[in-house]
């Protein structure tokens, strides 16, 4: 008797749990299903069809678009984009890590102010920030005028419309995204471990590489992803700061859809980018799982 009522009670409880799941997860997942998954699947499916004569799609199955993507020019653009995004990420790390480290060491009040200041440029309009660099780096602009005025160079250096200009633009856009996760990771470090190591005779460099760096690696990886991914797909910075002379994969994809009206080929390129990123994430997940086990130095309340 008790068993039966427990079972019906369990049934009611399970039904309610089911109902709750529907309420919580249903709306969000349905929305994402319709407006995220389907569009992505759709666009990726175009990769298998032909471009119509004037743009548009002809529903004839073909793998031509894939073979075309292996044309050296496109591989070059993809590699170039990876290199540019990679350099940007490394620079962001070189600048961002020390910055985050210093901020984490500040007294609480200053820490907050510093973080707000780091985040603030990120909240201003991206286009306008990029445009500011056009003004700054122009051959008639303040930087060049300053350099010529001080006498470091005789003639304005052409800095704009070059690959370095694109890297600077991307770095500027995404540096805050590197600093925040880094700060988060560094802030959780338990100072005592470092002090113990110092007491045992380890120098600052040794302490950094053996303790600090490995323990903050999750933050490093997150920060790198936050910078690398948007840099890879960005087309505005190469267009505005690169003078159209640096073609990144984002430009290629945009051009296929908006200029060449070759949606199938654009879809292949998008697939390539996604595949590449999925690979990156698999690596990140694998490495963070490995690191989770060695989470010794972080404070417990994290």
């Amino acid at each position: 008797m008790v068993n039966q009522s427990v079972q019906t009670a369990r049934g009611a409880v399970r039904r309610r749990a089911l109902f709750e799941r529907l309420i919580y997860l249903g709306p969000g997942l349905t929305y994402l299903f319709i407006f995220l998954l389907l569009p992505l699947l759709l666009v990726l499916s175009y990769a298998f069809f032909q471009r119509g004569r004037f743009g548009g799609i002809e529903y004839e199955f073909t793998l031509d678009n894939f073979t075309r993507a292996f044309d050296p020019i496109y591989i070059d653009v993809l590699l170039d984009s990876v290199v540019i995004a990679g350099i940007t990420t490394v620079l962001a790390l070189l600048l961002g890590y020390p910055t985050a480290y210093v901020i984490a060491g500040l007294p609480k009040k200053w820490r907050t102010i510093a973080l707000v200041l780091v985040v603030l440029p990120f909240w201003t309009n991206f286009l306008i920030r990029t445009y500011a660099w056009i003004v700054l780096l122009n051959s008639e602009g303040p930087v060049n005028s300053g350099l010529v005025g001080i006498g470091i160079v005789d003639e304005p250096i052409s800095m704009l419309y070059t690959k370095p200009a694109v890297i600077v633009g991307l770095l500027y856009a995404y540096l805050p995204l590197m600093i925040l996760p880094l700060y988060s990771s560094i802030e959780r470090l338990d100072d005592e471990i470092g002090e113990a190591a110092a007491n045992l005779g380890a120098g600052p460099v040794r302490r950094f590489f053996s303790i600090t760096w490995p323990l903050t690696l999750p933050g490093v990886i997150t920060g790198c992803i936050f910078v690398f991914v948007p840099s890879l797909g960005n087309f505005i910075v190469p267009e505005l700061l690169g003078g159209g002379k640096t073609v990144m994969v984002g430009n290629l994809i945009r051009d296929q859809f908006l200029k060449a009206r070759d949606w199938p080929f654009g879809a292949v390129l998008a697939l390539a980018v996604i595949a590449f990123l999925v690979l990156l994430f698999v690596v990140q997940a694998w490495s963070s799982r490995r690191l989770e086990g060695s989470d010794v130095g972080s404070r417990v309340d994290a």
Partner: protein
Amino acid sequence: MRRSRWLLIPFWATFVFLYVPILVLVVMSFNASSNPFSWDGFSLEWYGELAGNEDILEGFRNTLVVAVGSTVLATVLGTLLAVGLDKYSRSKALDAFTLAPAIIPDVVLAIGLLAFFTLVQFTLGLHTVLLAHVVFNTAFVTAIVKARLNNVDHSLEEASRDLGATSASTFVRITLPSLAPGIIAGALLAFTLSLDEFVIAFFTNGPSTPTLPITIYSMVRFGVTPEINALATLLILVSFTVVIAAQRMTRLTDSV
């Protein structure tokens, strides 16, 4: 632990790097000359021009509509999703799926949505931009609320239910209030992202309802116009206020 002095070099370099362009914009917005390469005296003329610029005002109105609408929707969807994922799902894949819009290159997402809207013959306009913005906004809200959930004490909820409260009541009276800072942070983040979002709006918008970033893009493409500097300065002021407010209200940086 004492930080090495050498670290201060990249530290200050970072802040100089981040703020010099902004200073340039702000200073130039008061430049009487339209030529950004020569200073002609202090003037508010560009702010005046800005106030009268119909295109910018229209862009701003449209952007606000999209930002507010998508934030509201995304906050609701995202909060529910975060709670649901936290309570009912161990699946990393599902987590990844809900976070996907934040990590897929926006150009890919934008094109997918354009293709989708085209296929279902949805006329493009502000409504399609709104629908598109909800997608990535939901991802961000979910991520932030979920992060907050990790720090929340579930025992309060359990106690509430043990004492006989219904799930709905527990949710409204216990869960939501404890999540409030995270929800607000998420909403603020979604709002700010939507305000500035260009790529997805560019692809999913109709011809006659440009959002502010799209208007700015046209202005920037056609060269240096001084109103942009005034606009930039104003936007910086707005962002500054929003971030300060967010910080005050939620101690945002504590949950970083």
